[in-house]
């Protein structure tokens, strides 16, 4: 690409990149938080709530992200939910990611040996402290690879937000390529960009994993 093209579209691409990273980080944090709440509610809540959340998980995991976005962004106004593209996209990412994170946390809880919870009960630690001090840290450690893995998947899902006109990197790249007719080059660079991003995140994830598991015996 010539320098002039970059000069012209550089700021736009940069803004798109910023929005991509923002969507990814905010979407990951929000959906992880919602997922954790769902997993805790399933573990400690009443049975009817458990069923309700189970249904939520199945429905969201059984439908494409794109269709969820359409329901939210184009269908929302019919029931009074009028959102701009970016907030709609963020809400969509949060809803979409939460059941996957909930399942990851659930299996993380399952991986904590029951004896360690019982040991805490035996010395009389109150239940909320057990959750906070024993269950959560141990579950987080064993769930970490899956958490990193899913946040990588979310990185890639952010490009779908471009379809509902969130001005992230994919959107800006397509805009640039329709104006400059450099479709192939633009998408090739975009692919390389995501490849690099995903490889970097997974590498950082592996390093983080090695760090937090350094005290844990591997079976």
């Amino acid at each position, binding site marked *: 690409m010539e320098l002039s093209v970059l000069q012209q579209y550089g700021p736009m691409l940069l803004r798109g990149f910023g929005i991509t990273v923002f969507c990814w980080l905010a979407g990951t944090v929000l959906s992880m938080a919602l997922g954790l709440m769902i997993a805790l509610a399933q573990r400690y809540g009443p049975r009817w709530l458990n069923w309700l959340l189970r249904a939520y998980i*199945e*429905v969201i*995991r*059984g*439908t*494409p*992200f*794109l*269709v*969820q976005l*359409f*329901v939210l962004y*184009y*269908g*929302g106004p*019919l*029931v009074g939910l009028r959102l701009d593209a970016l907030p709609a996209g963020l809400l969509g990412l949060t809803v979409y990611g939460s059941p996957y994170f909930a399942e990851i946390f659930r299996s993380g809880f399952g991986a904590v040996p029951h004896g360690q919870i019982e040991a805490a009960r035996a010395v009389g630690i109150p239940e909320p402290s057990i959750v906070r001090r024993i269950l959560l840290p141990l579950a987080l450690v064993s769930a970490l690879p899956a958490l990193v893995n899913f946040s990588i998947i979310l990185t*890639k*899902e952010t*490009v*779908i937000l*471009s*379809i509902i006109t969130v001005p992230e990197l*994919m959107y800006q790249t*397509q805009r640039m390529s329709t104006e400059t007719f450099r*479709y*192939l080059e633009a*998408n*090739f660079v*975009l*692919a390389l960009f*995501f*490849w*690099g*991003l*995903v*490889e970097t995140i997974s590498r950082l994830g592996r390093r983080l994993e090695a760090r937090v598991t350094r005290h844990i015996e591997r079976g």
Partner: protein
Amino acid sequence: MFSIQTFLDAFVPLAWAARYTLLVSCLGIALGLVIGVVVCAMRLSGSRLARGIGALWVSFLRGVPLLVQLLLMFYLLPVIGIDVPPLVAAVVTVGICASAYISEIWRGAIGALPGGQTEAAQAIGMGPATIWRRIILPQAVVMSLPALVNELILLVKASSLVSVVGILELTRASQAQAATTFRPLEVYLAAACIYLAINLCLAALGRWLEHRMAI
């Protein structure tokens, strides 16, 4: 107001369009299985070059969003002089993308086989080809079935993205329907229900397979 009538009316045309959703995902997984075997064999082979190419293949396809891969393919094909219908290009892209994940599924299944089984076969004098055909592959295929069903579910969802390149499958059809009826909520919810129905059936199939394997 939410119109039940519009919601129900949307089902028949959308369900009909869903045949392309099934077509893209089933052909996609079939192609993915074929390419996946080759990639898996490359990654397990003795040749360093083959292992490197296999690893690069998997890393690229898993690192780049499918939507970007689709656009890349659609802009690349005319440049290198290949003229195929969009449906073919879409299926090929989905299949290539799936091959990366499927090769990893198979690599995992083969890695999970206890090494002693191969040794026992070697100890009675079986050759490598026989060991692969009679001991490793039958077990790896069976072991990976639930994961492959899961991959198919992912593809059914991912196939919604081929709407972007103009394939009139479930998502594209619901966009058209929403535009003509001005009732996006009902129409998209109906589409979501159809996706959900397909995937719940597939998930049940996966559970059944897993249950049968456990015996």
